């Protein structure tokens, strides 16, 4: 069929796009640390985790619980944390979110935001504990700006994922 004349009704979205767009967006988020800038202060929000949580909040049944493992591994490659820390923490976050889903069926965006913000803060702090146990020695106060920036930027990530959600159905 000629380009531009594909049927727009009743069309079937590509399976690859349905899974691939969210996965790629999370991986690109993890790769933001590759920006060529040497920082002396942890300020860059963990974009991979933020995008993962945003997808989880928008499309509740998008990921199986184990999806956090490969995505976390990918994040560990870039993040500089000890290998396995994001694999562990992201999977635990998914398991905890499953429990939250049973407690609170009905949630509005502010509750989602609060839950996601808490999760990000906890992941960053436990990540610090893991990094410190393997040779680092940084106090938790240093992380405060990064946590605040991450929480404030979360709605933006939800917006982004909502756009991508439309995209993945129309690809």
């Amino acid at each position, binding site marked *: 069929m000629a380009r531009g004349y594909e049927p727009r009704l009743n069309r079937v979205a590509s399976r690859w796009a349905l899974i691939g767009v969210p996965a790629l967006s999370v991986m690109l988020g993890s790769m933001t*640390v590759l920006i060529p800038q040497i920082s002396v202060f942890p300020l860059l929000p963990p974009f991979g985790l933020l995008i993962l949580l945003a997808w989880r909040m928008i499309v*509740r049944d998008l990921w199986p*619980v184990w999806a956090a*493992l490969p995505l976390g591994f990918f994040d560990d490659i870039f993040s500089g944390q000890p290998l*396995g820390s994001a694999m562990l923490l992201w999977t635990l976050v998914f398991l905890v979110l499953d429990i939250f889903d049973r407690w609170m069926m009905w949630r509005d965006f502010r509750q989602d935001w609060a839950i996601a913000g808490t999760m990000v803060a906890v992941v960053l702090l436990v990540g610090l504990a893991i990094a410190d146990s393997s*040779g680092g020695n940084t106090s938790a106060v240093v992380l405060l700006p990064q946590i605040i920036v991450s929480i404030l930027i979360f709605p933006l990530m939800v917006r982004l994922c909502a756009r991508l959600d439309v995209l993945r159905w129309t690809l």
Partner: protein
Amino acid sequence: MAPPSPRRPGFSRRAQYGIFASYVIAVAGAGFALLLVLTARFDPNGHSALQSILADMTSPISSAARSALASTGDVGESIGAYFDAASKNKAMAKELAASKRKLIDADVLRQENRRLKQLLGLKTDAIQPITRASLVSSTGSSSRRYATLSAGASDGVANGQPVVGPDGLVGRVVSVGRVSARVLLIVDGGNVTPVKRSVDGAPALAIGTGDGRLILRPLTSDVQFKPGDIFVTSGSGGIYRPGISVARAIDRGREGTKARPMADPTRLDYAEVEPIYQTPPPPAPSQIGEAKED
């Protein structure tokens, strides 16, 4: 109606098993990840070998991005330079004149120093850098302060070698891949650098705090560091040769003197990797009898 929960698929056995399996995989994977994290603690060498393989794959991305973005990095700074240009110019002219005078003094001292060293028969070996490379990226979202260097084992880089920028010490290599290496910056919380005050050689330890600064702990209790003191590596314990500038003290805190690193890694383009410094062996003890005769 409540939104249908994807975790409760109804009566389909197949779907129920599928969900059960996904939980099993997740929990088993989390356990495996925990083991990986523990290797970082109990087998740091094996763990960093694993990480350096991965770093090799990712460093070309940052290198390419860095060369593409190199020109845009200074935009903010060049705009800022226009403000108060006149007063800055005046201050800089004054500073330049002062530093010229000091430079002349330093020249005289260097001459004298060389002459005295010749008299003593001391030999000064200039240290040849192993390689020169750029720092391409860093771990901006982690609490550890690592930077990726665009040179690896194929350029002769090895674990433990100090990395020195034009203004001073940057850090040391902690894991090496084939074409990239990971550098632990001196401001990382896990990095301790033996230093001495440049004016009188009072020894101290410079410990990173993870927020871009260092804490200076004097090794003798009777020394008080003042803001503005410059600290250089002391060379004790090896690794860093003596005399690389490390930090400038900024203020006195409760747990030690705070200092800022001399080499600002955020604006570093190139850094040199130097061979590991080995402390020269102490001179052989002279015979007691000889000493008495003297």
